[in-house]
């Protein structure tokens, strides 16, 4: 098990190197730092001096890969690639355009992101699985048909409308909770309840439908017939036998997103003014703060790979037949 984990983590390194090279190519090779400077300073009437100053402030004035003017080790370390890209492996993300440490911001903003994302995830999972089990229980009836129709309808609505509609109904019309905002302490409940609710409702369509397909796949198998032949009630068959056996396909899709919960949701956070990583990313995109976007891309892929490893571990927990070796 430990050996397997170490092997998986080692296997993640070449992938992260690939991600790193890709982002480096995207941010520094597709467009030269000169282009970026010209873009940010305004296209017309920009002096070469201003461009040089912009590049120097950000440390973009060095060569890309090899610094021939520098001494032995500096040949490789005194370059953009070493300072901006390779340093991300030790989670040193440098500074954003407004001069703050990106690593510090990320650490500070993970909390609010989690306060929304984690409850959404857990409540959502329970709701989706229960709804899917209900549809499976009533399979072939009008209820099942109506459930699937509702799911297709719900998944055809853009996520933007769930947020806009929710804010309009709950906050503006009924005045139940504030429209947006966030506070760290105990009274943050009133700020997070609406985003969580909207997050759960927004996912019902696609997730419940997906789980229903998984349950229907399981229900045609032999062990289900055996269980029924033993005289077990349909409810018991569903909840103990089918649910347990459907865990593997469910976990495949679910566990991988757990680490990504730290990243928060772009839309929800920006609509509700929650100072999490999602709104940090959106602000960076709008302000064209390349170093922040680069950092988030790298962080996102690290978390995704962590999710893949977690998924493998979770298999051994739910299915004793799976042995990692």
């Amino acid at each position, binding site marked *: 098990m430990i050996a397997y984990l170490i092997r998986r983590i080692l296997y993640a390194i070449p992938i992260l190197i690939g991600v790193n090279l890709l982002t480096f190519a995207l941010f520094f090779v597709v467009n030269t730092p000169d282009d970026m400077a010209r873009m940010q300073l305004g296209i017309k009437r920009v002096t070469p001096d201003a461009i040089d100053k912009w590049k120097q402030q950000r440390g973009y004035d060095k060569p890309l890969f090899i610094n021939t003017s520098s001494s032995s080790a500096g040949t490789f370390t005194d370059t953009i690639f070493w300072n901006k890209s390779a340093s991300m492996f030790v989670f040193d993300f440098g500074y954003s355009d407004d001069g703050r440490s990106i690593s510090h911001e990320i650490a500070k903003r993970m909390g609010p992101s989690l306060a929304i994302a984690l409850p959404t995830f857990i409540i959502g999972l329970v709701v989706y699985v229960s709804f899917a089990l209900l549809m499976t229980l009533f*399979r072939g009836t009008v209820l099942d048909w109506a459930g699937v129709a509702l799911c297709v309808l719900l998944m055809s609505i853009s996520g*933007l409308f769930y947020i806009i509609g929710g804010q309009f109904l709950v906050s503006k019309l009924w005045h139940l909770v504030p429209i947006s905002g966030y506070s760290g302490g105990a009274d943050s409940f009133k700020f997070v309840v609406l985003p969580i609710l909207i997050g759960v409702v927004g996912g019902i369509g696609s997730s419940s439908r997906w789980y229903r397909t998984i349950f229907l796949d399981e229900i045609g198998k032999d062990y289900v017939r055996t269980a029924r032949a033993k005289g077990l009630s349909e409810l018991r068959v569903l909840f103990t036998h089918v649910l347990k056996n459907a865990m593997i396909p469910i976990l495949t899709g679910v566990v991988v997103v757990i680490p990504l919960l730290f990243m928060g949701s772009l839309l929800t956070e920006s609509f509700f003014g929650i100072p999490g990583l999602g709104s940090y990313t959106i602000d960076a995109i709008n302000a064209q703060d390349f170093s922040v976007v680069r950092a988030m891309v790298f962080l996102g892929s690290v978390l995704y790979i962590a999710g893949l490893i977690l998924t493998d571990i979770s298999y051994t927990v739910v299915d004793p037949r799976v042995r990692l070796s």
Partner: protein
Amino acid sequence: MIFMPVILWSDALVFLLIGAVISAVLHVRKREHLMLPWRRLAHSSVAMVSTLVLSLFLVIGLLDTLHYRVALSQNSSGETVYSSEVLSVFDKLVTPLRTRTEKTYSAPFALHLYAKESMTDAQGNVVRDYPRLQYGGAHLADESQSSLDVMKRIANGGVVGFLLGCLLAWLLSRRVTRAPVLVSLVMLVTLVGASVELATAYHVLGTDKVGQDVLYLSLKSIRTGLIIGTLTTLVTLPLALFLGVAAGYFRGWVDDVIQYVYTVLSSIPSVLLIAAAVLMMQVTIDTHPDWFETSAARADLRLVALCLILGLTSWTGLCRLLRGETLKLREMEYIQAAQAFGVSSMRILSRHIMPNVMHIILIALVMDFSALVLAEAVLSYVGVGVDPSMISFGTMINGARLEMGREPMVWWSLAAAFVFMLVLVLAANLFADAVRDAFDPRLNRTESKA
């Protein structure tokens, strides 16, 4: 020439796509075994009704793809000068909708502007009141007649549409025998008839901040949504097909390299990867303003680039599926027999493997379509979508979102975008489900067992 045809990049790619679809249809028509799933599809009412709705959207989108520039005048050297505004055949058809712009917001069917203005009344006093709209309901002398007039127009247009729909249904009834399809055809044409009659006199869905008709904006958004949903497949398809099949068939180092590439790409959260790529594309476009003759050409290239980026970031899922299927197929007896006969790899791939993975590709492509239409709205909201000057559902929502706080509320742009998107995506989703049911051999078996 009184006009000059303009073929934007996206237009050219759409024509290419149409050509590909036509040749695929010709290929399939001759082969009964390939026609079989399509016949199954034609037997599903849901599939046919959604096809009907989708084809209405497609017609609008296609008309909106034929672009031209109007000739303005001839200069001294005898050369014709063309307007810098790029229009489409669709724009020409709905000229009244496009040109009749008010000053600012107005509600659906409103006779008055949303905002008060200073006016001089009959006695010469200056009063602040809501002025009459320049075009919306301007034909009415008596304002109290408006609801009666609306009813009359709905009835007139509806009856004409209904009769036209019945005629169409009668013409089609020999080929299409399913009642729900014919009924929805009649309903659809009735609706179109009533809206056309209304739209000539009123702003049926209101006007937006700069006074443009929201119905016009909604109809124009259709093309953007369709382009994003379809052109992306032009990038996804070859990448996923060739790399997926090659990885599964050749295995060894080819497989390792391809797997590595798609693992790297798929390990970056897609929104972030798209955002990063679009930001970089923006820098390229903004630093080269001399590349584009018209602003439409710039917005269009941005749209094509967005499709390219979406395609480059979303081929990995399909590629993985195809690799898995090819791994299974290459162990089949008929492939081994072909190998034993000394058939070349290229020929095995094209004759035996590709035809057998086509259903996976088709299902994946129609399933992706609705996701891409929805993604466009979100990306445009985040600021990494289409050009702000391009009319799309995303830019409509984005513009309307900030007006939610106004009193009374400006809700019509959002409602229009919501309804149009819902209909488009719902039809696409239902169609995709029907395609999956008709083409997936595995699903058919489980369905018949259950």
